[in-house]
């Protein structure tokens, strides 16, 4: 999408939302989160903060999560300003803790205290990967049942997803989970052939 195209679409959408407001139609919550800084991708030294629930917005500590429990969703948080980068769902991070002895070499290099982090956006058609297969310790997408192995770079182990989830390297800072480097791998979905544009 060109910058010009996107700008036009967003403008029209804002016009429509304004119109709906006038009609008394409730505005979607996420549509109001338009701070450009909240759209920036996770970067080195950001903390990870819980995305939802009672702890939403609080940093994740390195010993918060139990081994092999269902993944939690997190967003990066600017360590200086405390801004949570939740302006786009493309920034959603899956965080799960596994037995370090089960991690592949590449995965353990990106982990801290058994915690591993991946993009929460499925590489098939872009759904949020919300489900957990506790029998095999795998992420599962609710849309089309793609499965990913978090102990091995979130490689595809079932379903139609074309490639692994992008990985987010982690480190520990002051007992908290922090980002060690930007996402590794391709974010989101653009399946060859699903793109009509020949790319």
């Amino acid at each position, binding site marked *: 999408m060109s910058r010009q195209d996107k700008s036009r679409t967003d403008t029209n959408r804002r016009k429509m939302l304004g119109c709906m407001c006038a009609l008394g139609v409730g505005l*979607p919550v996420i549509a109001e989160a338009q701070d450009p800084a909240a759209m920036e991708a996770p970067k080195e030294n950001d903390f990870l903060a819980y995305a939802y629930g009672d702890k939403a917005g609080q940093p994740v500590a390195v010993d918060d999560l139990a081994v092999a429990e269902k993944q939690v969703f997190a967003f990066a948080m600017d360590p200086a300003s405390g801004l949570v980068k939740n302006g786009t769902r493309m920034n959603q991070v899956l965080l799960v803790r596994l037995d370090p002895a089960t991690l592949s070499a590449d995965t353990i290099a990106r982990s801290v205290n058994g915690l591993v982090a991946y993009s929460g956006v499925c590489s098939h058609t*872009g*759904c949020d990967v919300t489900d957990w297969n506790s029998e095999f310790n795998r992420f599962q997408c*609710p849309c089309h049942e793609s499965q990913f192995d978090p102990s091995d770079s979130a490689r595809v182990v079932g379903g139609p997803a074309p490639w692994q989830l992008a990985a987010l390297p982690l480190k520990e800072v002051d007992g908290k989970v922090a980002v060690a480097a930007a996402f590794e791998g391709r974010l989101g979905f653009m399946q060859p052939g699903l793109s009509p544009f020949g790319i």
Partner: protein
Amino acid sequence: MKYRIKAEGLLLALAALGMVTGALAQNVADMRDVTDERLQNPEDGNWLMFRRTYDGWGYSPLDDINTRNVDELKVAWTLSTGVTEGHQSPPIVNDGIMYITTPLNLVYAIDATNGNVIWQYRRTLPFDLSLMHPTNRGVALYGDKVYMATSDAMLVALDARTGALVWEKAIEDYRTGYYITMAPLAAKGKIMVGVSGGERGIRGFITALDSETGEQVWKTWTVPAPDEPGGDSWPPGTYEHGGASVWVTGNYDPERNVTYWGTGNGGPWIGEARPGDNLYTSSVVALDIDTGALKGYHQYHWNDSWDWDEVSTPMLIDVQRNGRDIPALIHPGRNGYLWTLERKDDGSIGFIDAKPFVYQNVFTSIDPVTGRPTYNMDAKPGLGRAGTYCPSLSGGKNWTPAGYNPDTQMIYIPANDNYCTTLAGEEVEYRPGQNYTGTTGSRASIREGTDYIGEMQAWNVNTGEKVWSQKFDLANWGPVMTTGGNLVFSGGMADRYFRAYDARNGRILWQERLNSGITGVPTTYEVNGKQYIAIQSGWGVDASRMQRAIDTIKGEETIVPQGGVLWVFALED
């Protein structure tokens, strides 16, 4: 964005100047605008809307291709769409110009006689879109425009002759889980659409936009607020994410000025999370087409816990029952029952009868007056409690349109039998745009001792009895088209065959193996005295998901390559 083939663009420009009279340019220039009169009484050779006519029959009177010669059908031309995933839109034809849509919201305008592409529109979808159902079910034609609803919950209006974007309007915010897959309904100066996203905690609605300006004319929620009629069928605080998506194009009764729409299940999926009937989920609603006011409804089943969207709009068919002529609504339900309802003059809906058309283990009785079912509660999933039920969450018939042939007086149902689901509920927190089903442990099974799943059934609408059935071991996801040539066309299975059945007895008279599985809606049309049959192939979406589940049960792997191709068949000259 529109992309016109340069040479043809030149032809068009020359045609506009009266400098050429080639067949292609003549077709575009001569194409008539689409009026209410034409939509209500379409010429035999045209297919102007999703099911061709407002009554939703999927029937064409064309009969040059018929039971005697259908085995001589040959490929006339094909067109690769360049897109994968589920191709489900009908080739819609106005005076020799065909319009198709594809997943990711492309629109092609094509010379229906030879496959020449006249223009192409590409929707630029947002980078952060989440595609639960990457498909689109076609355009609406009205006036001089083509309308498409999109995966990012927009409605776009294009110039029918050039593909130029005339206007685009946001129906809702895709980031909160709303999206649209249906073909819009056009009537009385309005373009009407419903929204999908019940599995993501949306609140469903149907809305009408002015066909010229795109301004909203009316909007009717399919989940009432607490202070509205039916609002007390929801526990406090639940209606805002109550689902009742509207997936499939509505039908329209001009005589009663009423438009009918099917609605989806509730959100979350498990009824114990929202005790009550949960109006107007899993229902048909009747709306005044001028105002959107609710005139009537019939809820097929209350407090759904099975993901039984009743999204297909019932067909408007006049039937005879017990010596009475009844203006009816007929709906083969996802819940596995065949429903016959009455269209009353005031817009309300009466119950006539209902009977299972596939094995169903949930309903224990149907109230003979109201049609309200009672349940086998062991088969109703609860919170923390699994239930095993048949038909499966994919239903006895999913979105795939059934058809009605007035010559045979039969409806044709693309059914799935003997396939069941085990499901349990769990608490779920609403998060905008995320999965909100609140289910766990979904598992598919096939009933022991059965030897088929997919079926094509024919039922006489007057006797209410099944006349014939063709059974297949594969699941059937094939929309139906039927013709004056006593034919029923449909695909729908992983074997990639496109088939023509004898509408009278179900015999398969012709079949052709296509490039991919077929879940597209077949159509037929006539140009220059020649009849064509058109269908899009392109496997994906729910059909591929169900096939994977069947493979898991059977320990097999069925490979159905994806890739959209528009196929057009005709008899040789």
